[in-house]
């Protein structure tokens, strides 16, 4: 099963974290640090797999992809296939790309909820649910449409809050 999905930037700042096996916050921080320590050591153009026994427990591996300023990391155990996980990262990134039109780090920073909504359509409780980015996108858009139609949060004038925050 997939143990965790981590998106972090090349400075080690987490941008999206999802643990499918519960980890208390302190532990999460420690894990992110160790993952970043491993990844930042690795040069470009080497294989995308890292044995993660020391970080996530015996039998775990992680696969990562380094895209622009971001690392996309999937942690998994021996009931998943390495190359399939690499493909899945591709699906995830592709979906984000379609959703945000040329995704960049800022999109991910400012779309916390949407990121989770998309991820939950692809991976559910550690199991792979959907591998077609088109389907994922459709489901995610449906959700945001429903949310918008029923929500009243956005009625608070943006301009006002914007002024206060500056």
């Amino acid at each position: 099963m997939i143990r965790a999905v981590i998106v972090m930037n090349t400075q080690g700042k987490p941008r999206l974290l999802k643990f499918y096996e519960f980890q208390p916050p302190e532990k999460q921080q420690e894990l992110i640090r160790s993952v970043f320590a491993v990844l930042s050591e690795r040069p470009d153009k080497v294989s995308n797999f890292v044995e993660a026994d020391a970080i996530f427990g015996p039998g775990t591996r992680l696969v990562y992809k380094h895209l622009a300023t971001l690392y996309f990391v999937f942690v998994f155990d021996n009931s998943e296939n390495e190359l399939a996980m690499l493909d899945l990262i591709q699906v995830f990134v592709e979906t984000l790309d379609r959703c945000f039109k040329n995704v960049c780090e800022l999109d991910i920073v400012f779309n916390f909820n949407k990121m989770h909504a998309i991820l939950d359509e692809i991976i559910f409780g550690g199991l792979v649910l959907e591998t077609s980015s088109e389907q994922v996108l459709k489901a995610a858009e449906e959700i945001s449409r429903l949310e918008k139609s029923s929500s009243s949060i956005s009625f608070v004038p943006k301009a006002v809050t914007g002024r206060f925050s500056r």
Partner: protein
Amino acid sequence: MAAPVAASSPSLVDTLFQRSLDDLIRALRSSPSAAAEDAAIARALDEIRREIRSPDLDTKAVALQKLTYLSSLNFLDPSWAAFHTLELLPSPTLSHPRVGYLAAALSFHPSSTDLLPLATHQLRKHIAPSPSNPPALAAPALHLLALASSPDLANHLAPDLLPLLSSQAVSSPLRPKAVAAALRTLSVCPDAAPVLFKPLVDCLSSSDPRTASTAIGVFCELAVAAPDPSPYLPLAPEFYRLLVDCRNNWVLIKVLKIFARLAPLEPRLAGRILDPVCQLIRRSPAKSLVFECIRTVLTSLSDHDDAVRLAVDKAKEFLASDDDPNLRYLGLRALTMLGPVHSWAVEESREAVIRSLHDPDTNIRHEALCLVMGMLSDNNVVEICNLLIKYAMKSDPEFANEILDAVLMTCGRNLYELILDFDWYVSLLGEMVRNPHCAKGDEIERQLVDIGLRVRDARPELVRVARDLLIDPALLGNPFLCRVLSAAAWISGEYVEFSRNPLELIEALLQPRTNLLPSLVRAVYIQAVFKVTLFCFISFNEQMQAAELLSLGNSSNERQGNLEGPYLFAGKTSTDQNTAFEIDHCVATADKADSIEKKETLTHESISNLLHLIESAVGPLSECAEVEVQERARNVLGLIFNIRETQFWNIKAYHELTRDKKVTELVELMEATFSEDLGPVSTNAQKRVSLPEDLTLNENLSDISKILSDHDATCASISFSLRSHPSVETTEDFAPVAETNSLLAEHRKRHGLYYLPAEKDDIESNDYPLANEPLLSASHGDVTEDFMKLTAQSLNPRKAKPTKPRPMVIRLDEGDGVSSSNFKSIKESKDDLLSGAIRNVLLGNESKPSSSLKKSSDKTSRRRDNDVSDNSELVSEHQDNSTIGDKEHGQSSSRSRHHNHRHKEKNDSSGKNGSNEEKSHKHSTRSSRYHKHRQRGDPPSDIVPQAPVIILVLSIPFGWICFQEKNEFNLYPIIIGIASDQPVRSHWIRLDCLFGSVPFEDPTCN
């Protein structure tokens, strides 16, 4: 920046102008420094704490959203807000419960919050299929269940998953999610298996590809995680159908994972899937699927040579893909999976593997190193290891240490089974130390000492290597190597008789840079100085005696005049080397031909100089703050003091020597102290000390005072302590020693069991010489003979090597697997629950689980009650059954099973029952057979001796204290014994063995 608006007065304005999540993110991003960001977070948290209590759900939702963001990405503990999270769930506005569910999914877990059961009803409402529950609401509820449900919650809500699981609506988006949630429910609550398992199985054949693929994912998780996957065997036809029909690579990968677990259980299954798997390897364009096929073949179908051949060829293709490091890495991994049986595969791609050692990718280098280490055999170990160590010299620090580690581990494996030439290996260890990046000092230290203890033949080379390490001043500054130096010092002290130049050794041990060493290592150094000094003195004394013999003989032959000159002591003309005591031929006469070279430098003068050197170097340490160093330094100084005390040192002429009895006594005493070999100690040694039947504690204790008084005298007479005895009473005679010895002999006769047994009458087959067993009367020849016997028994018969026989390595029994297997079985018990539940479901007797339970318990109890013969009858009966079954199914089994399955699909109930029954019969046979195996494997528990076990032996100044295992009164019986001058040492070692370490420094001089 966000001004702290109305920090003191929460008001309507406040809620109206609440900062949104985006505002918060912007504020955090605009913080110039980490400190400012922390302050911003703290401020935001205050804000959230206020807002989240608001009765307005919108305000609450936004606050929770912000908290979720902060807790997820800034690692704050959100558990204080758990209740507020639950408050949002019932809201009719879709976004509110979604925010709540997201927060809960990221932070809820039975181990962190126990509030989730409060939401049981709400969850049930949300996952119930109704028009008012859009998938956007039910999905996060299911997600929360899949991540955070406790056993109770899972049990309560299991029935509510059923409608979703069996929903027939075409491509219901919730069905796959319900399947995923069912996995968690099953794994935390095996009791739910009867309810959920059948619908899950049905999902496998769902027309919706997502449902089917999620379902196969669930079964893959279950089968891979289960310690015993046999309960899933009855589902094999389902999986086989997917393997043949399905075109979805994700599904196929999961099916292959399941078959990799199931195939070893059922040979016919392996044969059946072989063909489709090979087809996939040949045809599939998807590398992930091909790799999975390779893995399945290499791990689970490795008996089928054709398939292995095909898989290995494919793996080689992976290995050869120059542009994709991932494939190269996986290719190497595939080769690693093949066991030693198929070492040909690695041999074939040897070149590629060696080339991979230079790959820029650390993963690839690591795998290549593993493969190279796997190729090692006693034929090529020398070449490959030499090569690797040379390569490590010029590779980067991390990989250099990885190589060193791999070489140390592989060569040290199973008591150096690969090593035939220990001289080579010992010098290789020396070379490793020379690696500038070497950080494996601890392991090298361990192996050096270990080889010294176990391999007698390697000692001369070991001493040579140790000397080279000790005299190199450059090594002293390296903190990673001080452990190695400590081992080197110990070796040169313990086996000093192999040293070519003991004087040089002492100089090396006392060189000024030794003050860079940690004090514990320094203590070892000083103790080594003690041993070496003693050795020099003893050798010198022997020379004297030999010379005396010779001169006596010569004088009778009236040739004294010729020899008189050389035999004059250097004390007369101390500066003139030419008149120094030359003893070459004398030693030769004394039948010590082998040691000529090393002893020729020993003269009265050189030893005098040596003593001066030691005094000046060690003297300051006698006030050292570190007790270990101080104590040993004082021992050394005490020895020198004693040597100087004897008139021996002041004599001018040789013939006066023999008149001084004290010299002889001193030499004999000290020689005896170190004459015993230190040996490896079995971790079980302590357990073998059993309690004598006729022991009465009173009797022993009444002797104590007498023993004590005796021993005090002895102690005083041989003490070296300068402080308490400024003038050591060396004039006192040694009668008390003899007395204690006789007392001890008496004691040994009466309570021999406390001593490490000399006879081999142990229950456990322990034919090895007991470590440190005093070899009082045994000659050296006996020992070697013993050792020869040992090797014959303990080492596997190996090909005779014509050139050089492998030196014997002392090996102690390794029978310590019992506890670990116990632990394993405990660990597995929970998984077994689930397996058992699933077994019941699949065998179709969930309606009457009690009866099956009774039946099985009946069986086991019968097995326990009855004796072995009955047991074997039972087994043979089963075997008969199974062979009949095999015959029945033999040729057309898989086809008929397949057929059954099709049949089942058409008219579900009747066909299913039939096939299930058939499977259940087969299955029960198998499981009972496994059971039997396990039983046979268990150690016979009744044979365990009931005698109390001694758990601790402490050495005390006059003997030892032995603690036994606590008795039924919760007391730890204590036995106190005495020790003579000799066994003190071995008892200390017994203590050492309790703590699982080899004896490192001997405390003889306490």
